[in-house]
């Protein structure tokens, strides 16, 4: 029996595809004394890997997930466990055909072969499918199946060959010790191991293990039903792992996967069946394995009928028996993305959870790189465990969102689609007033943010065709021309914006200046009262954030960043504080609310509320100070994300409603209107060429590529400085550009408006490739009402990045001509920034 080491450099809990991949990549990157623990036997300890269908469809609308999948496929191929079989996603409805056209666009954007085919073409490869049931299909020739258990064994063996790994099977972790916010040891049924690093790669059990360390991994075990039917005479002659393409019957949320002479039918159509990790049976209690639960026939019966419709002769055979049927457990998360990275709650506790077979090896590599270098080749910003705010870690939130999300697995999900469950959690102090104004709320990190206001509907008459109405239902879904009307009113008069969703934290203390200098690219050694917009980089010079920092005092800096990514940013700052404790981070998100007031009349409006000198010279751009507005003491910061004269106004949250009313009343005579995030986040921003984190900016992008290079680099050292200096010395591999759409007319004569994610091609439709080997895709899209144009942002190959260059963009199977309007940070609207500095 393997002796339990008393000490480990890292303890990896879990021997499914993720844990095995993590130990292999850690060993490859030089980690030694790795201890891997699983409570089950090897090679199949009884988790979700053991009953996975093991097929991989590479195309996803998410770049991050697709990159992880492609990396995983490469690794599976290296291990010799990948069998290519091709796959069809078949459509029974016209709406699904449209979705498949959108999928083709994503395939083009990520450079993955795919084509739309007719029902007859499907039958050529899948002769037992009834072509009369479908309208067409998405053919993905590089779909394949893997042996994930074999892959795991090989990866463990490779780590063992490096003499880096001790594997403890049949050992259960029963407790973890945390001291001073750091993991210290792991208790197992075979002994204690002291360590300062633990990876939880326990799939559906991850929340239970995390709780032992006081950490939240907000996922839920959920049932995915599948059956295996056979023997099927039509499949009798097949040999090997798989001989027919896999069929995803998208409209019924089912798939059919041939396996020997059997056909496996799996479903994401049934009611959400959720469990708590503590309710999962032990290995001894389980009938098959802990994650293969008793099948509930009645939930699957509708899918049987649908599967029979698609493959009537094959599955209708009286000899074809349902030989295996399970309610298999898999992991669901509130937003559908994996949960990766170091927990924000306890140092040294890492999560590698909610990962499908198709991403397993890629996630292993990503996490190992992250643990080793502090960053990974593939950006993980949408999967970072730190993205969850406390309310998003609760069981109730996880239950609500996963219940809603389960049936979206094969669903047609609009890029702006809003959740309906567990809303109204974080409400701005002026929320009631916004409701009265008919605000249409979108959610960010639990905050309810007005996206536009029904009260502004009269503006539609005022601006007429300038609001650029959209005819197509998809283009206009989760959108309103009122957004563009609000935009025009703001540019013409003024608008005020609820920015309560900002994440706000102070870096304070004797060492505060050194701390922010070390973290930020921008020069932070500025006079108190200065506001600095700055990128935040990792060591390799990739974006970790972009945000503003106000120097409020010699020893106090206030950081303001977007709510969506704010929790991750806060963790980044905390992790990079001086170790000797001379600076600390204090979260003030719930202490302050923010109202933005912008537009040519902003100074008149603010001036009617205060005696303070707010003239251009008296209150210059990029500065902040306390001003009295009526009886409120307000921190005003003269900056803008929409390219207008104006201020962000910060007050204690309980005074937010009062400030909202003050601004509203003062704005009325000037024709100011409430303006939603549709303007703030899209139209105002795009006209000004402002980049958004998560869209244009992530850790795979550099300041140089994003066109955000300043003339000088500060002398003080900061994270990523060395890499950044190198980047500045070299020509960029890719260049962020803004493009205008020249003609929106589709084949049927209707006008179409891109929403983001579309591939950018040459004018005649040829694919483009940048110096990274990536193909350009639209990172942000939206109206520019002041220009009467629709704008797109994309990273283009440097040779294509010239103003006036003609290209095209593919949208729902058609190409539209576009022209490069800007190939650096110069904005297409008010390029000289005269408005901001007026």
């Amino acid at each position, binding site marked *: 029996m393997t002796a339990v080491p008393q000490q480990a450099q890292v303890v990896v809990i879990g021997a499914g595809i993720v844990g095995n991949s993590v130990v292999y990549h850690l060993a490859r990157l030089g980690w030694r004394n790795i201890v891997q623990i699983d409570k089950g036997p090897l090679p199949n300890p009884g988790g979700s890997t053991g009953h996975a269908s093991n097929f991989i469809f590479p195309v996803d609308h998410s770049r991050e997930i697709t990159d992880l999948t492609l990396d995983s496929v490469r690794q599976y191929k290296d291990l010799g466990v990948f069998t290519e079989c091709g796959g069809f996603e078949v459509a029974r409805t016209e709406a699904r055909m449209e979705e498949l056209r959108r999928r083709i666009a994503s395939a083009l954007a990520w450079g993955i072969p795919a084509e739309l085919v007719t029902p007859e073409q499907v039958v050529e490869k899948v002769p037992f499918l009834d072509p009369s049931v479908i309208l067409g299909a998405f053919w993905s020739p590089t779909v394949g199946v893997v042996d994930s258990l074999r892959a795991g064994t090989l990866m463990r063996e490779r780590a063992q060959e490096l003499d880096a790994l001790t594997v403890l099977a049949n050992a259960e972790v029963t407790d973890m010790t945390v001291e001073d916010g750091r993991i210290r040891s792991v208790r197992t049924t075979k002994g204690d191991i002291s360590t300062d690093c633990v990876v939880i790669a326990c799939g559906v059990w991850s929340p239970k293990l995390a709780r032992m360390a006081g950490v939240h991994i907000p996922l839920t075990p959920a049932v995915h039903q599948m059956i295996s039917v056979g023997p099927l005479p039509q499949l009798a002659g097949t040999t090997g792992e798989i001989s027919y393409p896999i069929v995803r019957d998208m409209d019924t949320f089912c798939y059919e996967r041939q396996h020997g002479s059997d056909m496996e039918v799996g479903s994401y159509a049934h009611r959400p069946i959720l469990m708590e990790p503590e309710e999962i049976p032990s290995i001894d209690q*389980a009938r098959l394995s802990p994650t293969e639960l008793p099948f509930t026939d009645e939930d699957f019966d509708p899918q*049987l009928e649908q599967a*029979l419709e698609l493959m009537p002769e094959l599955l209708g055979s009286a000899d074809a028996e349902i030989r295996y049927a399970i309610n298999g457990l898999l992991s669901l998360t509130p937003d559908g993305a994996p949960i990766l990275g170091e927990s924000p709650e306890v140092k040294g506790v890492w999560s590698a959870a909610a990962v499908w077979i198709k991403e397993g090896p890629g996630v292993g590599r990503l996490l190992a790189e992250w643990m080793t270098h502090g960053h990974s080749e593939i950006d993980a910003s949408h999967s970072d465990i730190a993205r969850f705010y406390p309310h998003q870690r609760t069981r109730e939130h996880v239950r609500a969102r996963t219940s809603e999300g389960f049936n979206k697995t094969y669903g047609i999900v609009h890029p702006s689609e809003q959740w309906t469950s567990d809303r109204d959690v974080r409400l701005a102090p002026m929320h009631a007033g916004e409701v009265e104004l008919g605000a249409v709320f979108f959610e960010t990190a639990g905050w309810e943010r007005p996206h536009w206001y029904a009260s502004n509907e009269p503006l539609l008459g005022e601006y007429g065709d300038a609001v650029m109405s959209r005819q197509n239902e998809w283009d206009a879904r989760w959108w309103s021309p009122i957004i563009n009307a609000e935009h025009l009113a703001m540019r013409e008069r003024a608008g005020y914006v609820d920015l309560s969703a900002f994440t706000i934290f102070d870096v304070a203390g004797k060492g505060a200046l050194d701390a922010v200098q070390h973290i930020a690219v921008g020069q932070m050694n500025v006079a108190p009262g200065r506001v600095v917009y700055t990128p935040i980089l990792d060591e390799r010079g990739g974006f970790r954030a972009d945000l503003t920092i106000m120097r409020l005092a010699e020893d106090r800096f206030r950081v303001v960043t977007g709510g969506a990514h704010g929790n991750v940013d806060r963790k980044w700052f905390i992790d990079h504080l001086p170790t000797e404790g001379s600076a600390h981070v204090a979260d003030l998100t719930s202490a302050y609310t923010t109202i933005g007031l912008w537009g040519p009349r902003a100074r008149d409006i603010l001036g009617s509320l205060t005696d303070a000198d707010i003239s251009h010279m008296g209150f210059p751009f990029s500065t902040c100070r306390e001003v009295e507005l009526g009886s409120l003491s307000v921190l005003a910061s003269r900056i803008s994300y929409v390219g207008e004269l104006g201020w962000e106004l910060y007050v204690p949250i309980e005074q937010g409603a009062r400030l909202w009313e003050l601004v509203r009343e003062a704005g009325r005579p000037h024709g100011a209107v409430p303006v939603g995030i549709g303007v703030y986040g899209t139209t105002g921003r795009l006209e000004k060429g402002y980049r958004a984190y998560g869209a244009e900016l992530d850790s795979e992008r550099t300041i140089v590529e994003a066109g955000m290079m300043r003339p000088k680099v500060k002398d003080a050292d900061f994270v990523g400085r060395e890499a950044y200096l190198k980047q500045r010395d070299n020509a960029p591999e890719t260049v962020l550009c803004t493009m205008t759409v020249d003609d929106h007319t589709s084949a049927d004569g209707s006008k179409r408006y891109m929403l983001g994610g579309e591939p950018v091609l040459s004018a005649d439709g040829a694919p483009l490739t940048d110096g990274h080997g990536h193909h350009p895709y639209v990172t942000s899209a939206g109206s520019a009402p002041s220009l009467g144009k629709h704008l797109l942002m994309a990273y283009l190959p440097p040779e294509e990045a010239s103003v006036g260059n003609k290209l095209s963009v593919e949208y729902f199977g058609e190409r539209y001509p576009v022209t490069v309007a800007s190939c650096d940070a110069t904005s297409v609207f008010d390029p000289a920034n005269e408005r901001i500095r007026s």
Partner: protein
Amino acid sequence: MTNVLVCIKRVPDVSGEVLLTEDGMSVDARHVGFTVSPHEECAVELATQVADATGGSATVLTLGPSDGVEQLRSALAVGCSSGVLVEADTDRFGPADVAAAIADVVRAREAAGDSVDLVLLGNDAADTGDFQVPVRLAYALDRPVLTNISSCEVDADRVIARGDGPDGTEIFEVPLPAVVAVLEGGVTPRYPSITGRMKAKKAPIDIQTPTVEPRGSGRVRLRVPPPRSGTVEVLGQGADAAPAVVDLLVKIGVVSA
């Protein structure tokens, strides 16, 4: 044309560690779900075969909670054509009560003109293991009964049944109507087909309330026996382990030195 009534019981599908409910009165099926005993699966298969061979019918019956419909549907998916649910609180029904309730169903069907020529049951239920219902049912109906039967077929008005006896296979021949208790092993129960499963969804199920006043089984409580102790000793790996294996085989007397 033999009309068969096959009786099944919904029981927890335990395989490894057995959990009891908090009151200790029954087995907790939360992790394992429900099934019928392997004996009953074979009885269902035999019922289907007899009905097919004689052009008769196979009706499946269960006595228990309304959830028992799940087990009826499973039997309907593999060849039975109709179901009877005698809805009752299983805990209050002892074997004598169950036999009496089934006898009532048989009598009522015969009174209505539907003959019940052959009643098939499992030798014993997987959970309670009473070994009583078939014999009591036969007594109540005044019919011959065979137990420990692995296979059977009907020849005109007789049933020919086989079972393993101490000296080999025993073959019985009894006149119909009769009661036969089945022991697993003689036939291979089939899995449902998709079409079978869909037919089962639409098959009629007659829901009845028992007419008998139950006397119960006298169960006090259930107790899980202490786990059998055992340790695994790995003797080695590959060819190097061979001498140790030989030593062990000698030690336990399987081979002589």
